[in-house]
């Protein structure tokens, strides 16, 4: 549990001591996140493009790798429009709230066992509380634009967030019951002590958390607040330029935040898969494999590029990337402490990325719910199932603690009971039967 920044501690003046280290970490997280967000947008465009048999960005840099930077510059340089009749102060404030709420939450996320800005003992509550402030960015932005599409989008968004927050809360409660602590790193440690990720004993809670997370971040199929066929762009219709990019940043940061929460609560945070299984130790060289693959990919694609001189920079860049990845891979292999040091962050990011991929995948696959259907799903299915799950999780815990049954087994009994409830709830609707006949004429 040594914080890498503690090395600096002796050299700092006493008065500043409590500030410098967190500020450094905040800086790392903030800058890193901004970059990650930019590249998540890139990844989204690329993945969606490949789902939709397109290429996606290809022009700026090799395979469009510099596209996010170009986009960022473009957004910064665009004219900043405040609509006439808008409440300019709130119009200015709203995107800031949105970004702040999303970024502040990361202060409490344990990226690794030694990399967390501040480990508060009510960490989880704080993350949830602060991320729930993000809704103000949406409501106020929609309201202050003085236009109908944004207002409708904001109202929808607020109703949606408030509804799904309940289900989200109940899903979180079951993870809390299992770990017995509100501290984020404590929850991960509880999963290490139990030797099992909570997703394997509380799949229903995980599922509810996942669905609620999609709803909370206004992603497809719950992207009603920004349904472009109905509300143009929802609450940020009137925003342009830098303010718009702030919203964009906030939205994607919120996506990462909820993914991080889900990973911390249910997917074992920074631990590698099956940490208790000794012979899987070779998995710690997964970063090496990843970077080696990057090198291979870069080199392979460089060979496919045209030899024309105007492609020279693109080729050089790709080779440079590949070389960098190769160097990293070599360092990992050559210096074992380094590879051990990045384990936590690596696995954490891998899991978060898997989540984000799911978000993008859904966007490419699903149609959009109607508003009343979304509400019905939330209130009629998600919340009752979440409550049932919490109760049966408690029952399972009692079985485990008092009767001495096995941990996983007793919780699975609870899960099965929850699934029964879910089945009863969903039994009310019948499956669609095809009604179009072709024969005859």
């Amino acid at each position, binding site marked *: 549990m040594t914080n890498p920044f503690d090395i600096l501690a002796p050299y700092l003046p006493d008065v500043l001591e409590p500030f410098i280290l967190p500020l450094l970490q905040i800086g790392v997280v903030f800058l890193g996140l901004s970059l990650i967000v930019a590249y998540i947008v890139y990844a989204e465009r690329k993945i969606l493009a490949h789902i939709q048999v397109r290429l996606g960005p290809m022009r700026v840099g090799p395979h469009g790798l510099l596209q996010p930077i170009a986009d960022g510059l473009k957004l910064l340089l665009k004219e900043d429009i405040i609509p006439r009749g808008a*409440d300019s102060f709130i119009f200015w*404030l709203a995107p800031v709230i949105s970004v702040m709420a999303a970024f502040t939450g990361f202060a409490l996320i344990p990226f690794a066992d030694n990399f967390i800005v501040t480990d508060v*003992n*009510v960490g989880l509550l704080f993350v949830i509380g602060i991320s*729930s402030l993000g809704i*103000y960015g949406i409501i*106020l932005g929609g309201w202050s634009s003085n236009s109908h599409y944004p207002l409708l989008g904001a*109202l929808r968004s607020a109703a949606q967030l408030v509804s799904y*927050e309940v289900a989200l809360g109940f899903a979180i409660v079951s993870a809390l019951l299992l770990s017995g602590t509100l501290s984020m790193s404590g929850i991960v440690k509880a999963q290490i002590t139990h030797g099992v990720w909570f997703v394997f004993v509380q799949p229903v809670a995980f599922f509810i958390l996942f669905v609620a997370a999609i709803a909370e971040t206004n992603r497809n199929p719950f992207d009603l607040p920004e349904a472009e066929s109905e509300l143009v762009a929802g609450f940020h219709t009137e925003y342009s330029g830098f303010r718009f990019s702030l919203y964009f940043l906030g939205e994607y940061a919120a996506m990462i935040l909820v993914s991080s929460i889900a990973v911390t609560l249910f997917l074992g945070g920074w631990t590698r898969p099956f940490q208790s299984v000794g012979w899987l130790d070779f998995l710690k060289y997964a970063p090496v494999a990843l970077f080696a693959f990057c090198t291979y990919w870069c080199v392979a694609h460089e060979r496919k590029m045209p030899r024309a001189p105007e492609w020279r920079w693109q080729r050089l860049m790709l080779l440079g990337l590949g070389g960098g990845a190769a160097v990293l891979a070599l360092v990992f292999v050559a210096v074992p402490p380094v590879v051990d040091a990045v384990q936590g962050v690596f696995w954490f990011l891998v899991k978060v990325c898997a989540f984000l991929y799911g978000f993008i995948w859904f966007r490419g696959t699903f149609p959009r719910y109607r508003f009343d259907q979304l509400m019905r799903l939330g209130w009629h299915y998600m919340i009752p199932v979440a409550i049932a799950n919490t109760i049966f999780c408690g029952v399972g815990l009692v079985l485990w603690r008092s009767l001495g049954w096995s941990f996983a087994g007793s919780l699975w009994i609870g899960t099965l009971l929850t699934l029964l409830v879910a089945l009863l709830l969903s039994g009310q609707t019948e499956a669609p039967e095809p009604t179009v006949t072709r024969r005859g004429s």
Partner: protein
Amino acid sequence: MFYLFNFYVLAALTVISAIFVITRRNPVHSVIFLIITLLSLALLYVQLQAEFLAAVQIILYIGGIMVLFLFVIMLVNLDVVARQAPFNRQWHIAGLAALVLLGELVAALYWGRGTPTLPLAPPTALQPNTELIGVTLFQNYLLPFEIASVLLLVAMVGAVLMAKRR
């Protein structure tokens, strides 16, 4: 020193934004200042090392109740005249009440001068206050807690009933 500085900043923020809450003409602005008041209160709780209270304050008041306030204000969509009209018309009575309260406070502080100050608890002693609150609520005061929750339920059902009847 640092904590003192923090305290004064937060206290000033609380008071000033509270004043803004009642002087703004635009209800949405009032709500925003109310949020700031509540937020700085939450930060004051953090100063007192009552993190749980602070978190609950944020989640419940700021994340929940104030959102509904905003929601209602936007839905009701007061017309322009009503919005321009100040809703704090009873300056005199309010000022009088505030003066009385101030006098009371001053008096209490003045007469209470002699009582010994409470010792500051060492930070470590307060560490697991979440558990403490849990124990207090669910063991020592279980009955009042449950009664309070039933009361809230009754209020909610009543509100739904009244809304339905309309």
